[in-house]
């Protein structure tokens, strides 16, 4: 049985004026144990909304439109946020957020924050002492300055220490599955490497074994993920293995994304990166045809009107009728 | 801003609090038009409630309903006066100290720390008791306002200091904005909802402080307030012999008023502070 299954998941927001914004449309995938799936796309593409949907955490104005999410066969849909927080989060699925600073209460010490989080996710069955002992063991394992970090307020730590603390706390109960939402986007490259190394250590030690890693940095996914899905305007437009997507992209959007990347590799300075002009369509009024057509350099006449379905192209899924 | 207002109007506790508060204000402003307020001596001491005096009379035989209307007006006046003084002074000094640092910041810190050690109520008692003559309602409001602003200053200072390092302040400065412009256009608007919440709390504490010092006999000499009604009841034996009308209505009005202000404040906090919204 797959560890994690997402079945035709669509999610929408309802605004105060009754307007429906279709943030995520028809996302399906399954994950086996040990898999790392990277999801990439620009801001506003629905990545962060998808994260909430994948945890079954529906807090108005976010609502599920249709579809199902199952962890180890158990559905996360149609459950209250309280139920999800108490019985799913931290234990089965954990989230690593982007801004560690916003995730940590500035007025509490790291060890108290950990106790709060774990207590709220286990219904208060674990004692504070137990939690602290486990956290101490974890932090030691990752070569952190355990005593200082545990007794520090968030502001007294470096950005890297904060993010590693957040990861340590959210994986304390050995969840099967971790969803990391841009865990390193706010960090500099050196700290990013340290944080990724910690994530690799956690994987190697089996503290969790399946991960969804969300970012807008494709080169990073090249080194972190097994499989990569590219998201655009709420849909997956391409999904394949790491090598397929990075080295041989087939969807025009993926190709454009790769073309806009910059690097300091020899000979790269003469290559002119091309940024993608224009903006993604408004999700309040989803175009009937290809959502990328308005910005696509190779769009054809009927792309704007013809519905595009995911289909197999060169061994991976691509949502473009003309890709080959 | 309109969005926040709409969210506020969706919050039942805000509706209840605001409703109660408006009701008391409305009562204070409009009742004198419908009810003949007469503070003269009209009946025997502690006359029981009857058809003419709906809530009876006090120890001097004054109509209790008239006393309560007048007392409510006094209490609201004192509350608003202290609220305005303490919030304006506290916000101005807090925002300046938080943004600029320097001697003004040190001064605000010194005074607030001083008031942490010496409760402002004690200062209030000392000042009030030294003014044995000419202790008017306005003077009491002034004294309360001038002894409680430090709390607002402290609260605003912390918020202003956290805004100080934001990029839009740096941008405003390299746009050539002077300190006054930065404070009024680029910091104050961000704190407006917070300052309003402080104002609400200051009004509530002003009403309570006035009632408290009046009750121990240091209240205004020029008018009737809810606190002086309680003081009279206490001093003239109104607490005994089942004469509930001597103190109960005044207590209820103070409680309702302060309760209304407190729930307005907490409901606003729920809407303005996203951390609590979840």
């Amino acid at each position, binding site marked *: 049985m797959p560890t994690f299954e997402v079945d035709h998941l669509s999610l929408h927001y309802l605004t105060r004026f009754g307007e429906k914004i279709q943030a995520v449309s028809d996302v399906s995938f399954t994950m086996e144990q040990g898999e790392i799936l990277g999801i990439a796309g*620009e*801001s*506003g593409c629905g990545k962060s909304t998808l994260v909430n949907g994948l945890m079954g955490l529906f807090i108005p104005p976010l609502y599920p439109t249709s579809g199902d999410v199952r962890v180890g066969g158990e559905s996360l849909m149609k459950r209250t946020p309280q139920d999800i927080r108490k019985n799913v989060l931290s234990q089965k699925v954990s989230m690593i957020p982007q801004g560690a600073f916003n995730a940590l209460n500035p007025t509490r010490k790291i060890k108290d924050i950990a106790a709060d989080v774990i207590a709220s996710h286990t219904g208060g069955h674990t004692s504070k002492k137990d939690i602290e002992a486990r956290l101490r063991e974890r932090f030691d394992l990752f070569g952190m300055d355990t005593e200082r970090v545990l007794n520090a307020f968030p502001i007294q730590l*470096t*950005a890297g220490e904060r993010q590693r603390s957040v990861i340590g706390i959210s994986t304390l109960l050995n969840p099967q599955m971790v969803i990391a939402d841009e865990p390193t986007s706010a*960090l*500099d*490259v*050196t*700290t*990013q*490497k340290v944080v*990724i*190394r910690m994530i*690799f250590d956690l*994987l*190697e030690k089996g503290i969790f074994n399946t991960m969804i890693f969300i970012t*807008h*940095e*494709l*080169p*990073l996914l*090249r*080194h*972190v993920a097994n499989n990569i899905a590219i998201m655009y305007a709420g849909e997956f437009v391409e999904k394949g293995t790491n090598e397929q997507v*990075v*080295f041989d992209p087939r969807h025009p959007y993926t190709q*454009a*994304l790769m073309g*806009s*990347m*910059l*690097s*300091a*590799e*020899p000979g*790269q*300075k003469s290559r002119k*990166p*091309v*940024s*993608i*002009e224009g*903006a993604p369509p408004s999700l309040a009024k989803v175009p009937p045809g290809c959502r990328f057509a308005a910005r696509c350099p190779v769009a054809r006449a009927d792309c704007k009107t013809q519905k595009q379905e995911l289909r197999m192209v060169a061994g991976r899924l691509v949502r473009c009728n003309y890709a080959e | 801003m309109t969005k926040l207002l709409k969210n506020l109007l969706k919050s039942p506790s805000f509706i209840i609090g605001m409703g109660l508060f408006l009701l008391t204000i409305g009562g204070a402003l409009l009742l004198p038009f419908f009810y003949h307020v007469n503070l003269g001596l009209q009946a025997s001491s502690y006359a029981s409630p009857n058809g003419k005096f709906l809530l009876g009379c006090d120890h001097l035989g004054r109509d209790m309903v008239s006393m309560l209307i007048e007392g409510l007006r006094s209490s609201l006046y004192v509350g608003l006066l202290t609220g305005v003084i303490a919030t304006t002074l506290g916000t101005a000094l807090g925002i300046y100290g938080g943004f600029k640092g320097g001697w003004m910041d040190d001064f605000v810190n010194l005074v607030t720390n001083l008031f942490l050690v010496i409760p402002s109520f004690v200062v209030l008692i000392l000042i009030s008791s030294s003014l044995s003559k000419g202790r008017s309602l306005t003077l009491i409001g002034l004294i309360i306002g001038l002894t409680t602003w430090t709390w607002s200053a402290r609260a605003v200072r912390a918020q202003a200091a956290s805004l100080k390092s*934001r*990029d*839009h302040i*740096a*941008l*405003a*400065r*390299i*746009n*050539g*904005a002077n300190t006054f412009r930065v404070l009024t*256009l*680029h910091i104050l*608007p*961000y704190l407006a909802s917070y300052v309003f919440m402080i104002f609400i709390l200051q009004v509530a504490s002003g009403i309570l402080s006035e009632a408290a010092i009046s009750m121990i006999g240091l209240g205004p000499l020029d008018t009737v307030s809810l606190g002086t009604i309680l003081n009279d009841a206490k001093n003239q034996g109104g607490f005994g012999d089942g004469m509930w009308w001597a103190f109960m209505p005044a207590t209820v009005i103070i409680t309702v008023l302060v309760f209304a202000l407190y729930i307005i404040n907490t409901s606003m906090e729920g809407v303005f502070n996203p951390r609590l919204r979840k």
Partner: protein
Amino acid sequence: MPNNSSAPAPVFYAKNVTKTFGHGKTLVKAVDDVSFSIADGEIVSIVGGSGCGKSVLAKVMLGLYKQNQGEFTYRGKAITDTRSHWNEVQSVFQDPFSCFNQFFSIRSQLKDALNILKVKPSKAEADARVDAGLMAVNITPKDIEGKYPFELSGGQMQRMLLARIFALRPKVLIADEPTSMVDACVRANILDYLMKLKVELGMTIVFVTHDIGLAYYVSDRLFIMHEGKIVESGTPDEVTQHPQSPHTVQLLEDIPEIHKEWLKR
């Protein structure tokens, strides 16, 4: 002294500049004894990890901080009058969302920026300059008419900051991490605008970033900073192909590149 000959004084000249914060036990040397000079029309990138002092150095150049020790001059003179300094030296900041005051429309804030100019433009002229600035970053002025900061995306906001620069036309631009909060696919776009400022308006640009890859693209020279010191400087090719300092090597190694080995699981 930089201005002893007939040659024009450099735009920025620093000799043993140190900037510290706090005192006694809590003393932090944010910038530690740095010396350099930046010539007219150059694009110089200051590269380093967080806390290396690059942003503090940028704020010294901008006149928002004053050095504690050493000599720092702008075109041969110490920065004394900040208003006239900001007339010539302007900045874009890191976080485009927190850069604008959310209580005023974007257009009014762009117009407000023109107040720093020595000669105040007339109302019509100010409008024309703001429009030209917006057009320079490919934004149709009427698209942002009546819009407030929270109605735009991060990439658009970052372009608003650049539009402000195109409208102001300062002589020097300090770009403090303008790309770190925007999507990877918009970064190339922002670098293009920096190049355009240099080519079309002859602007001197100091580009502060933690990403040596980005710096490599736009710069004429790179300064690598670590713990307050400039540990290496040179042309982009020298620095990236033959790094001398271990800190430069580290910065280069830490970037996940598509064709290069990085961390292995």
